[in-house]
């Protein structure tokens, strides 16, 4: 059965694009805020163990509503590992470039202004 671990105060994740990293029983976990929701994943790149969640957050380009032009989705949902540039979606931990790779993720709960992960 998963145990709840305090990782942050909600006030520390007040805006989209905010993140908090913490050590949970010897494993580093990051919590990101995207579209008002919290998402947690391990701070360990699938490639070679780089500090993934300490990299740059960004949006991404996609096809615009007209189906013809490119548009930039500026939601800060993609994290890039500072070691070798591997990219993952913080909402589900999946690689942007190859869906066979995925970073561990954790369920997140909030209560009385505190943010917890389940592990």
């Amino acid at each position, binding site marked *: 059965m998963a145990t709840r671990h*305090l*990782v*942050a105060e909600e006030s*520390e994740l007040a805006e989209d694009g*905010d*993140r*908090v*990293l*913490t*050590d949970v*029983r*010897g*494993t*580093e976990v990051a919590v990101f805020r995207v579209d008002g929701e919290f998402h947690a994943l*391990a701070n*360990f790149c*699938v*490639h*070679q*163990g*780089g*500090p993934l969640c*300490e*990299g*740059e957050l960004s949006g991404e380009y996609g096809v615009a509503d007209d189906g013809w032009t490119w548009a930039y989705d500026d939601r800060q949902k993609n994290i890039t590992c*500072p*070691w*070798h540039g591997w990219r993952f979606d913080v909402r589900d931990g999946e690689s942007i470039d190859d869906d066979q*790779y*995925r*970073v*561990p993720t954790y369920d997140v709960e909030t209560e009385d202004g505190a943010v917890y992960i389940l*592990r």
Partner: protein
Amino acid sequence: MDDCESSPEPDPAGLETRRPGEDPEDPYEDVDIETLPDWWREGVELHREYDLRPYRPPRFTDGAFTQAVIVDLEAEVGVEIRLSGLDTQQGVEWTLLVDGEPVTTLPRQRSPNGYTVYGLSSAAFERLVREAAD
């Protein structure tokens, strides 16, 4: 099990051509992980489940494992210890919190050997926690 002292510190750039999860060593080759503390065994199992490089615990500069020191200190001193980084990017220090109160910031970095090293000794960390608890 612990390659902290035996392996040369590789350059992260030198790891770029390795396959995902590839590691030159299996630190648990001759280890029954059931004999490890729960937090350690859980780390090993998580890394195996996701085909990550082997789990290697975070540590202080003297090689003492952070989690082991924290568990002992929390039990002995009767405080809650948290290491946390707010909006942290690579190279930015984390904060040591004792019972939710920030005490100081701690330098840290991810070693290319696959573990985090905090830039102080376990003895210095213990002193900080005990002073904060007094």
